[in-house]
């Protein structure tokens, strides 16, 4: 182990042509992500929480419909399977997004990273691309698994949605007193509502895109704040706490504010049944709001990443 002779027994490197650029840094950033355990823990948590709650919600709805068939109208089976993914999953993916940059600051690794590759824009871009790719793939997988598991749990209830065929559910339920005056009320249904596979697919994919963009929002906050706890706290504040606070505002104007916040999209993207929310924009314009938040935060983060002392 000890070299007392004055020799560096290290073979020389072959000369290199070209220039170190995005390709190598992308490989590096991917190595960074796959070589720490926290990546696997958080991704596993995302999938377990989203899919697990989708299953529980599915069983819950099936049993509810069984005992209260009058609840069939308006039951959004697709949203029920995705709600844990976009409400809780967004918080977990926010941790992944924030930590993909703040962990470099908390460990000091950023100084090493910027010493081997001082072109900071390249590093930032590579981090962004790797995070986006991983978040998108994991979100799509989670969204689809949540959907299928949730619908399987609802099987036989008559409301479960499908990606392969149109599903018709009743639009209204009427309750009549039972003949003779004893026993449970008699339920009859009026009208139908048809949910096309396209609507369901849009909800499943749209929710995955929403969660992916949330990861980018957290990444931008991470680049700005450079502190894991601070970045995660502010991401949760922006995506979760703020909307709770807004709920407390007077009805007359709280909706007008809510549509400008990044989490509003989650609530419209996953909807497949019933009238559209009159207070929010429709799914894709609302998604655009979330995307604009991400673009601004990632942009500010990138500017600061380049300008500040590391």
């Amino acid at each position: 182990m000890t070299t007392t002779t004055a020799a560096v027994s290290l073979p020389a490197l072959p000369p290199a042509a070209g220039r170190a650029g995005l390709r190598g840094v992308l490989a590096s950033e991917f190595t960074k992500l796959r070589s720490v355990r926290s990546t696997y823990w958080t991704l596993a948590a995302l999938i377990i929480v989203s899919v697990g709650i989708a299953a529980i919600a599915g069983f819950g709805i099936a049993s509810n419909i069984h005992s209260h068939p009058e609840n069939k109208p308006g039951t959004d089976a697709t949203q029920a399977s995705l709600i844990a993914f976009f409400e809780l999953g967004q918080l977990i993916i926010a941790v992944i997004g924030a930590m993909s940059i703040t962990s470099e600051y908390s460990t000091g690794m950023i100084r090493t990273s910027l010493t081997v590759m001082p072109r900071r824009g390249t590093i930032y871009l590579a981090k962004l691309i790797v995070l986006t790719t991983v978040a998108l793939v994991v979100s799509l997988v989670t969204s689809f698994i949540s959907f299928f598991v949730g619908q399987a749990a609802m099987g036989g209830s008559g409301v479960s949605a499908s990606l392969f065929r149109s599903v018709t559910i009743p639009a209204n339920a009427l309750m009549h007193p039972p003949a003779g005056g004893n026993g449970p009320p008699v339920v009859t249904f009026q009208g139908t509502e048809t949910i096309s596979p396209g609507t369901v697919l849009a909800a499943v994919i749209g929710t995955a895109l929403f969660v992916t963009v949330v990861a980018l929002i957290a990444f931008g906050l991470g680049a700005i704040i450079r502190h894991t706890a601070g970045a995660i706290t502010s991401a949760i504040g922006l995506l979760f706490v703020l909307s709770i606070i807004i709920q407390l505002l007077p009805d007359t104007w709280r909706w007008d504010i809510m549509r400008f916040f990044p989490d509003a999209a989650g609530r419209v993207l996953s909807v497949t049944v019933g009238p559209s929310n009159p207070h929010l924009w429709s799914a894709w314009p609302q998604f655009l709001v979330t995307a604009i938040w991400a673009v601004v935060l990632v942009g500010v983060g990138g500017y600061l990443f380049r300008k500040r002392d590391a």
Partner: protein
Amino acid sequence: MIEVRGLTKRYGDKVAVDDLTFGIEPGKVTGFLGPNGAGKTTTMRCILGLDYPDKGTVVIDGQAFRGFAYPMREVGALLEAKAVHGGRSARNHLLCLAQTNNLPRRRVGEVLELVGLTEVAAKRSKGFSLGMSQRLGIAATLLGDPKMVMFDEPVNGLDPEGILWIRNLMKALAAEGRTVFVSSHLMSEMENTADHLIVIGRGKLIADCTMKEFVARASGASVRVRTPSADQLIRAVTVKGATVGTGDDGSIEVRGLSAEQIGDLAFDEGVRLHELATVRASLEEAFMELTADSVEFHADPPGRPESAMIGTGSDR
């Protein structure tokens, strides 16, 4: 060749580096000396582009560090051994660094072998001792076979074997014609390693000279005399304008006169001398003397909370 010109860096109101200009040449070990808080780390951070200077420039072989096609082939730098993600294995840590500069994968194994970490390559660096972390950091600097290496306080916390290893490594790297720039707050560390010295205090340049010149500056500071008639001799030399201190072994220390002058004076006075010797101030003392005015955090009497900064090792 690293050229630092007029480098100035402030953190808030505090001037960390103040109009610093020097050059670092290839083929030798250049020691970068200064008390804690003198601005050594800040200077190195500015050289690497981690911090942006408020004024001045740093040029490496004629251009800014960030402009190099393959930065790792130009400069390998180790500022903090613990600036790694502890959850990553040594091999993966080096791999992710090597990939940024398109270095071949086998290079990781080669540098691990060189620093003696092959056996723990798959272990997470969290559990590494400081010595192992230093070796991992040095392995990282050598990945790109760089023309220049920079180490900030590399022997801090190392055992004697590790210190010797790093010294030999630095000498060997310089002998191969590379530029070696190494900082320390301890003169003794430089004595056996550095060919050239850059000394700073409070962000300002104090000395930029060869080790030989530094040694010359340091010698002849005082003369130690032992005599049974100390009082008589003290009177005689004081008249000649010298200052006298007393050593704890009964000797007296004369400053301001040479050994020859004191000997002649004693002869004239009829004073018997038992010892007459020029004290060559140690390099450590010379360094302390040079930087005495520029120590950022003086040791205060106990109870003064300001002194809490001492020994934190933080150099910013």
